[in-house]
């Protein structure tokens, strides 16, 4: 009887121990899965937003011959997808650990500052007719993307 009781106690202890181990493992796996899920979701929203952006730009010219109603609907779809991308980006940032968040924040700060200063200077060059072409918003977007990319790379190397 005592033997059965002891075995039952050991089984119960092992079960609890395994449960704790499994809970910790599960938590780690869940964290990793959540990070992957949020990154994939951000990529999907960004891709969808980019496609809708291209659709508005090229679709009005090549697909629906500047039909106003379709263009407005396409712009609205682009805006909704853009909002989804922003929300997805916020969720992705919240899931980062504190160092990664600090790196992202610094990179965004640099990008904002550089884009504002260089973008306005570029616009002034256009206004003053110093450059022979129009200052397009797309140039600023390219600058923004490159600035963020290089900031992330440089800051990541700093904390290695």
């Amino acid at each position: 009887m005592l033997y059965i009781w002891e075995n039952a106690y050991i089984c119960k202890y092992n079960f609890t121990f395994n449960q704790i181990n499994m809970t910790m493992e599960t938590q780690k796996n869940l964290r990793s899965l959540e990070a992957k899920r949020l990154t994939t979701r951000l990529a999907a929203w960004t891709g969808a937003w980019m496609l809708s952006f291209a659709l508005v730009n090229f679709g009005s010219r090549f697909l629906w011959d500047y039909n106003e109603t379709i263009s407005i609907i396409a712009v609205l779809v682009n805006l909704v997808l853009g909002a989804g991308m922003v929300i997805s980006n916020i969720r992705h940032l919240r899931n980062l650990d504190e160092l990664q968040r600090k790196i992202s924040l610094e990179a965004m700060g640099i990008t904002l500052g550089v884009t504002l200063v260089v973008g306005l200077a570029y616009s002034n060059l256009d206004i003053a007719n110093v450059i022979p072409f129009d200052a397009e918003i797309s140039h600023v977007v390219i600058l923004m993307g490159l600035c963020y990319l290089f900031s992330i790379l440089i800051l990541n190397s700093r904390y290695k």
Partner: protein
Amino acid sequence: MKNRLKVLRAERDMTQAGLAEETGVSRQTINAIEKGKFDPSLPLAFRFSKLFGLAIEDIFQDEQEL
């Protein structure tokens, strides 16, 4: 801020990746903290304290006090 994270980790035969997993941060963060390039937040410092069974001031020391 100085810290004994590397020593404590070595004493317990833990890798940076292992410690990162236990505390829910990236390996890069553990490396940056060990090298003194990044100071952890209070919640993360508490997680180290709980994991190593030591007080926070036994793991992290203010360089100005030393």
